[in-house]
Structure formats: C-alpha cells, structure tokens
C-alpha cells in the first residue's frame, strides 16, 4: 500500500476513534436515563400578584383547581396563593415534588398528593403531621378519604378531591345492573353473544389500574391487605385473593373480558364502550359526559347506558377503590401556618368543595352528596360511602409494581397463580418496612 493511502487511512481511523470516544462519553455520561416524553416542568398559574405560598397540584382538571384558588384569594386578599401546575400523569407529579423536596428547593408549600402517596411522603420526612386537625375532618369528610390521608394512625394530609368507580351497563342489553360478580359474568356473556359484541371492558394492562381492578374484586370477596394496626400483611387470609384471581383468569380465558383487555387502560375501555362494543365497563366518572355525547363527541350509546355501583361476590353492598387527591404541608415550607389553614379550608369549606362538585370532580365533603339533584352524584355518594382506600403505606409503589407484574402474568396464564399470590403477600410485608 502506498504511503499516501496509509496516511489517509490513519487519518480516517484517528477521526473515527475520536468521534467514537466522544460519542461514548456523551452517551454514558448521564447517570440517569432520560424520562419519558417531554421534559415539561410545569408552570405557575400566575393567580396572585404577591403570592404568599404555592400550591403544587396536578395539571389535570386545571380550571377546577384554579377556581378554588381564586375563591381563596378573593377571601384572603393579603394572603394569596399561587398554583404550580404539575404534569397530569401521576409518576411525573411525584417526580416533580420529589425533586423539589429532595434538592431542598422548597418551592412548594402545599402538596396535592395522590391518595396512595401519604405513607411514602410521611416516611420520607417530606410532609408535616396534621394529626391535630383530625377533629375538623372526622365526620365531615368521607371516611375512606380520611383513611387515605393517614399513615400509622397519624393524619398527614387532609382530603380534597375523591374518585370512585362506576359499573357502566347497556340499558338496551341488560334490564337490571347485576348485584354479584357471577351475575355480571352470566348476563354479560349472554348479552354479548346475542349482540355479537364483547362482555366486559376495564383496566387490565400491567399498571396501577390493574391493581385497582383486582383490589375491587379482592375487597368485595372480603379480603383486607393489612391488619388494623398496619403491622403485617393479611393478603392471603381467607380465600379472597384466590377468588378474585380465579374470576379474572376465567373471565379472560372464556373471552368475557374483551380482546385486548390485557393492554387496556381507562380510555381504551371508554372508547370501546362508547363505540357500542361492550355490555359492561368498569370506569371512573369522567366517562359519563363523553358517553352522553357532550361537546360533539360521537357516541353510539348516548341513550343506552346507565351507571350503577360495582357488584360484590356476596351481593351485599359495593366496593370501589378510592381515588383522588389529599393536600399536605411540605416540611420545607416557610409558611406552614398559612399552608395548614389553606389545606383545612380546601377540605372543609362548603363553597370550595362545591366548585369541585359542579365541575364533576367528586368532592370529599359528605354534605356535598346529601340532597343533591344530580343522579350520578347521588350514585357516586353511595359508592364513596363504601369505598376502600388503597393502603397508603410507604412502600405502596413497590408493592403495586409487584402486584402488577405477578397478577398480570397470572391471569394471562403465564405464571402459577399460587406463586403469584405469594409474591404479592411478600411484597405487602416488605411495603411496611421502614428504614
């Protein structure tokens, strides 16, 4: 090979090696992988000229939270609040609040926490105890909502908004909503065959929604995840766990669950039901206006659906998992008294809670459900009265991830059911551990 071409090759290689080294360094430099999608950090609502404290809350249902804050500002012109809107998805909200707290930035005074985060935030030392405010909300807020705001019998947050599940059913295909899960299965299978559609849609993907769907079956079979003192797991006591899992496995195998149930989230289910493709649907209240065809939504079932409480295995009562938000006070807040006052006000002021009700975001004050004229709200009041809080233990998220993995594989027949349930039991015990 000539001297010239060797030189050229050398140059190519040097360049290539340099480039490669640079690429490698940049590629591996970040100790943490990139998050999903956008890096949107949220934004201030700019509600006050001279805000005294900041309320960090989900960007979902933004105008409702804004209206609540405006009402506070109107009444407290010297002590105004500003809202910092977080991303609408739960994981991103939690991450944003963790960043604010862990980095000691302390921008947020009031934290709008998902009902399952109480234990974790309390255990991490992120939020103040509000135990002395218990008497203000006992009997005023929904019992389930208060349950979700405490960890180890101590109150760390106050209820703000709630959520519960409806059983949506097709009035043109079934006469009466079922009282038991067996009845639901039988009537649903029959009606689905006649109409040539699917029996049931719900949340079967491997995510928090699956845990909620499973727990509703589990609780309605008489199960409880922990003993009263939240000191150990009682997941496997009785036969609630196997009853619930067997029901799901059979419903999946027999095709009662619609095709694609195993990757279905709330809006997938809603879309199928709205297109007239299913007899029953388990979903949150948000679907009602869409199914009714409000705002130009196309709906095949606008006049043919109704809502009822979810059935149980015994036919008695109903069980729904409780959703919603609790407000807590950050330990880094420089305005704790004001923050506490706001948290209490948002939980117990009838006018503030009424803003939620009129915007179809379920409020947590019991009085909001009494003598209401909205039939859906009335049913919801009945459901929320019996609703179960997912236990807000510190390791809830780890436990939930284990449940997602094992239960999903188990009802699809990819994992031995007994082994799956034992794994869940172990994770429930681990979720209680504190360091």
């Amino acid at each position: 090979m000539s001297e010239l071409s060797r030189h050229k090759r050398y140059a190519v290689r040097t360049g290539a090696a340099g480039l490669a080294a640079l690429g490698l360094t940049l590629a591996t430099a970040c100790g943490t992988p990139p998050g999903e999608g956008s890096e949107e950090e949220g934004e201030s609502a700019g509600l006050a000229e001279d805000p005294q404290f900041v309320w960090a809350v989900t960007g979902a249902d933004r105008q409702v939270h804004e209206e609540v804050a405006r009402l506070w500002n109107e009444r407290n012109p010297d002590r105004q609040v500003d809202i910092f809107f977080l991303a609408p998805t739960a994981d991103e909200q939690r991450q944003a609040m963790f960043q604010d707290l862990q980095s000691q930035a302390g921008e947020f005074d009031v934290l709008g926490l998902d009902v399952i985060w109480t234990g974790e935030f309390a255990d991490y030392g992120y939020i103040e105890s509000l135990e002395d405010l218990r008497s203000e909300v006992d009997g005023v807020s929904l019992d389930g909502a208060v349950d979700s705001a405490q960890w180890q019998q101590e109150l760390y947050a106050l209820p703000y908004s709630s959520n519960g599940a409806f059983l949506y059913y097709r009035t043109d295909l079934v006469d009466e909503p079922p009282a038991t899960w067996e009845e639901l299965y039988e009537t649903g299978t029959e009606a689905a065959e006649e109409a040539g559609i699917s029996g049931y849609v719900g949340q079967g993907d491997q995510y928090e929604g699956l845990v909620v769907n499973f727990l509703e079956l589990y609780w309605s079979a008489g199960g409880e995840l922990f003993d009263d003192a939240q000191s150990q797991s009682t997941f496997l006591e009785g036969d609630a766990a196997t009853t619930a899992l067997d029901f799901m496995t059979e419903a999946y195998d027999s095709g009662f669950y619609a095709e694609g149930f195993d990757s279905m989230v709330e809006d997938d289910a809603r879309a199928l039901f709205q297109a007239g493709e299913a007899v029953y649907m388990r979903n949150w209240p948000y679907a009602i206006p869409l199914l009714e065809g409000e705002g130009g939504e196309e709906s095949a079932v606008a006049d043919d659906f109704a809502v009822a409480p979810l059935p149980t295995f015994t036919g008695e009562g109903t069980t729904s998992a409780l959703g919603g938000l609790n407000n807590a006070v950050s330990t880094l807040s420089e305005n704790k008294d004001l923050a506490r006052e706001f948290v209490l006000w948002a939980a117990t002021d009838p006018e503030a809670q009424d803003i939620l009700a009129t915007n179809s975001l379920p409020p947590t004050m019991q009085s909001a459900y009494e003598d209401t004229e909205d039939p859906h709200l009335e049913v919801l009041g009945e459901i929320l009265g019996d609703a179960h809080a997912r236990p807000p233990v510190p390791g809830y998220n780890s436990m939930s991830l284990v449940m997602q993995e094992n239960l999903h594989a188990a009802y699809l027949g990819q994992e031995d059911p007994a082994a799956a349930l034992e794994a869940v039991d172990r994770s429930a015990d681990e979720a209680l551990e504190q360091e």
Partner: protein
Amino acid sequence: MAKTQSVSTRRGLGERAMGRIFLAPSFAFMAVIALFPVFYAIGMSLYSIRGFHQEFTGFDNYARVLTDAGFFNAVGNTLVFTVASVSLEFVVGMAFALIMHQAFVGRGLTRAVILVPWVIPTAVAAQVWRYMFDHNPGFVNSVLGTDVNWLRDPAWSMVGIISADVWKTAPFVALLLLAGLQTIPKDYYEAARVDGATVVQRFWFITLPLLRPAIVVALLFRTVDALRMFDFAYVFAGYSNSLATLSVYAQRFLVAEPELGYANALSTVTFVIVMIVGLAFISRMGRHMVGDVARKEK
C-alpha cells in the same frame, strides 16, 4: 525528527504543549459536563437514601445489585435486544447503504425516503409502533394475518421492540456505512473488474476491508446505544419485567420506587457495562492506530 523538536523548543512552547493548551478548555468543559455527574452518581450510590433520611452504607447497594433477580433479568433482556437489533440493523443498513451508493434515477429521493425513520423522535416512533402492535385496532395482526399478543407476550413483545428498533435505526447505520463507501476510490473496483473479479469478490475483498473503520464505528455507536435503550421498552411495557432493560430498571428506582442510592448503583453498573463494551470496540481500533504510529517512528 530530533532537530525539528529542538528548533520548536527554542521558539517557546513545543507543539505538544501548545496542543495541550488548546485542548484544555474543551477538556475542562467535558469534565464539568460529563465527568462531574458520573462521579456524583457514583458517590450517591454509596448511600441509602429514603427522602430526608440518608445514611452511608458503603457497597451495600452494589451487593444488592448482585443478588437482585430483577437486575439480572434486565441484563438478559438488554443483551438479547442488543445482539439481535444490532446484527439485524447492520445487515439491513449495509443493504441500504449499497443501494444508496449506486447511481440511478431517483437516488436523491431514495436516500431521503430511507432516512425518514431516523428523523422521527424515538418516543414518538415508539408510541406509533405500540399502537400498530396493539390488539385494538390490531393493525400488525391484520397485515400479517396472525393472532399474536404483541404487547403482552414476553417473547413476542421482544420481537416487537427489536423490529421497531431495526426500522428506526437501520437508516443511521446505512448513513455511516454510506459515508465509508464514498471514501473508497473507484479505481480499485475498475482494476478488480479488469482482473475479472466477480461482484461478490469485489464486495468481499475491496468493499468490506476498506469499509472496516466505518463498520466498527457504526457497530460501536449502535451497540452502546442499544445497551442504553429505554424508549421502546418503556413505551411498550412500562416497568414490566418482560421487557425491562437496564435503563428502564434503573429508572424504576429513580421514579417509581424512589431509592436514589440504589438507582445510582444500578446506573453505575450499567455505565460500567456500557463502558467496557465501548472500550473493547475502541481498543480494537486503537491497536491498529498505535501500530501505524509505531511503524512510522521507526
């Protein structure tokens, strides 16, 4: 050689020293941007961090990594994904590059079309692929006439993300290889043709050897990238063990189960794995270069 060096010394700084001075700012920049976070992460990995409670625990987190079945599952997933996707991307990319290198009518358009997937952001591409694989509406199944649970069957979902990744990054490999192809002088092919070499022989004895630097760079980039893969696995299956790669698994302890110490230990181990693989590639290139320099100095 010795003479030129003494001359330059007399003038002041030597060429080497000048070079170092010129390199210093960019090196400092790299150190701040790249090295600081790495060492910071390694430092954090020695702590157990739960919110405001943190405690120095030495190498406990690393001991936990080595006994964590979830971690080894992630290593397995990552290796399967990397080997399968990089080899397929190489074959497909090579084919694309050879096609694009030919002179034919519409060559410009073909090049543009082949590059389209590479231009689409991975997160967006992942969403689109997920939708196509989904049971509802079941696009892929109806095209292939199959009834496969693409998103939730552990084996098939791996096939799913590998094919999506090949679609996405084969054009990138093609681009790198095309650049390499264009540096090969035409004369060699002409000479080979005069000597009666067949197409296969020309490819095997001229194209491949001369393309070697470009191939190594392409494989290095793709391997390192595939080892860090996050988007497709996360969009397809979230934190599910069936697809969790090393990046997804580390992210799980950063966001879903926030234990910053353990997350950083996982990231550090991932970093070390990627670094070893990367250095293995670079040293292969490096040895030849050192050889060249050594011969020259004789």
